[in-house]
């Protein structure tokens, strides 16, 4: 775990449990979701967040009700860490009317604006201007809410990165750009996409407070996010955070990921964020193996319920779709 988590102000059991629960819930969602995909129950794209759970988990723990998030094509983890209802998520993936988007959106478009979730996105880089826009809306409306856009290494070579982060900077917006640098864009290694793989430097170049953090350590992410949120609420935003991480598998469910070197993958698997969260709960809060197993079982059951619920849910009918379409 991160140095911060070991300091004098040792984290509470409550906090440690929350972190583990979130990270594990994402792990279960993705692992079980992949099974549903392979059974043909989920269609379209499914980009697993496996291996990156520490980032969404740590980051969302530092945010408050009323804050906003925007996400990527790899968005399940952010959604779950933000407190989404797993039932409605699974139902969405299963194209059901009970899903977050009534089955209109699917994996890449889950959003819930009622709780400030601006949504996943199928366009790499699009979450950045949308997030900056939400931060702008909040500033105009006199709110001190913070908006976090979860972004990617791939999106950092895209024009939206420069344009929108610069707008956030000149307007001192309460905006945090959290770049999840997992080293790949599909099969393209980051070294092939840029000469300088330290992406946080791009924030510094335009006068934005910028940090780099171990994305596989949820506690370290939490600490740097807490600080970033403070910077924002003090009116000194935006902040850029680059979190180094790695995917545990190919780009999407059907990508075998053969281009990922075995030793590289092994290195990161040894630094599994879910394992870290579990170890922290066990070691720092003295939680027993049995209690942890109980938590895990509870989360697994919650997912199984969600699948059951979703399977029994109806789909939107073509008739009501046609009604929806009128005047679109």
């Amino acid at each position, binding site marked *: 775990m991160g140095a911060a988590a070991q300091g004098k102000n040792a984290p509470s059991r409550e906090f440690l449990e929350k972190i583990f629960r979130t990270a594990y819930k994402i792990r279960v969602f993705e692992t079980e979701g992949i099974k549903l995909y392979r059974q043909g129950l989920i269609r379209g794209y499914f980009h697993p967040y496996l291996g990156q759970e520490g980032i969404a988990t740590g980051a969302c723990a530092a945010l408050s009700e009323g804050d906003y998030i925007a996400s990527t094509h790899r968005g399940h983890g952010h959604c779950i860490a933000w407190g989404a209802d797993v039932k409605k998520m699974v139902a969405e993936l299963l194209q059901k009317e009970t899903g977050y988007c009534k089955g209109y959106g699917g994996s890449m478009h889950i959003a819930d*604006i009622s709780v400030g979730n*601006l949504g996943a996105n199928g*366009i790499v880089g699009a979450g950045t201007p*949308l997030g900056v*826009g939400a931060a702008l809306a*909040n500033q*105009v409306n006199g709110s001190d809410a913070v908006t976090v856009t979860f972004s990617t290494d791939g999106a950092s070579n895209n024009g*939206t990165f420069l344009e*929108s982060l610069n707008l956030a900077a000149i307007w001192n917006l309460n905006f945090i750009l959290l770049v999840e640098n997992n080293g790949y864009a599909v099969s393209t290694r980051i070294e092939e996409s840029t000469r300088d793989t330290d992406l946080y430097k791009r924030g510094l170049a335009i006068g934005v407070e910028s940090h780099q953090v171990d994305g596989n350590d949820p506690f370290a992410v939490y600490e740097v996010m807490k600080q970033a949120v403070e910077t924002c609420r003090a009116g000194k935003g935006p902040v850029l955070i680059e979190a180094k991480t790695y995917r545990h598998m190919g780009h999407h469910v059907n990508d075998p990921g053969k281009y990922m070197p075995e030793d590289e993958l092994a290195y990161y698997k040894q630094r599994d964020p879910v394992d870290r969260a579990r170890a922290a709960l066990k070691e720092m809060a003295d939680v027993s193996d049995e209690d942890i197993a109980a938590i895990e079982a509870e989360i697994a059951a919650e997912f199984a319920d969600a699948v059951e619920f979703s399977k029994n849910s109806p789909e939107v009918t073509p008739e009501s779709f046609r009604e929806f379409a009128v005047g679109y």
Partner: protein
Amino acid sequence: MAERELMYREALREAIDEEMGLNPSVFIIGEGIAERGGSYKVTEGLLAKYGPKRVRDTPIAEAGMIGVGVGAAIAGARPIVEILYVDFAMLGMDMIVNQAAKFRLMTGGDGRVPFIMRTQGGTGGGVAAQHSQSLEALFYHIPGLRVVMPSTPADAKGLLKYALRQDDPVMFLEHKHLYMTKGMVPDGEHIVEFGKGDIKRVGTDVTVIAWSNMIPRTLEAAEELARQGISVEVIDPRTLVPLDREMIVNSVLKTRRCVIVQEANRRGGVASDIASIVQEECFYEMDAPVEIVAGMDIPVPFNLTLEKASVPQKDDVVAAVRRSLHLDPFAEAAE
């Protein structure tokens, strides 16, 4: 109701001013719109009145401006983003097409995007190929966008006020030649709903549909045709999406003839779509094919003579109306 004469740009300013006064989440961003009052002076005085939080200059970053506008709208504000030329909106097409237009459907209906892009198009005085386009057809094709093209100060004001109270993304397309034109605008609260066309001139022989800067030109043509004993009905749909199909179809059923005038180039323009609707709905009642008077299928040249040749002039409208009445059977179709 009482009314006053205003310039198009003043009418736009009044709409923004009134709605900013009523709703604190209306704000406006754009290049040079704050301190300088905007290139078309639409936003003059707004900075002083509403302050720098709600009236902001931006860097030259159209994709970013449009993108943050869309994000702000999703998050519940009512942004107006001024883009200097509709040509530059091409830099923000992803945000318009893939985000703004899609969000409502992708969220199953919950998400709303009350985003307004104000910009202007059309030819005018030798500003050449990258500053003269009429690009409404691109927005018109994308489901989810509202496309508004006012031709008069009153419509400009009423439509912009309506735009600021509805919840879908609006492409509010002004015309560089209209900013200084004048017209009567009703006093007090003046709102023009989307989807309601306006009959700018009543007539019985031929229906002519036009919008934006083609309206004054078409009205001149109608005047000349009247002197020739031809009665032209001029319809301004005002909003292309939603389109007042009923008004168009009813008029064509009455006149049995239809001419559509657009400044944009012919191929794949909005006129073609309206023609396809008219022939579908009125085929058995029509006495002539729908005539389209449109810009040439070529970028707009710098040279002023060629620029003029590239877009419809009054005489082109007159000729098309006469063709649709089977007059001058041996005259060649004007380009």
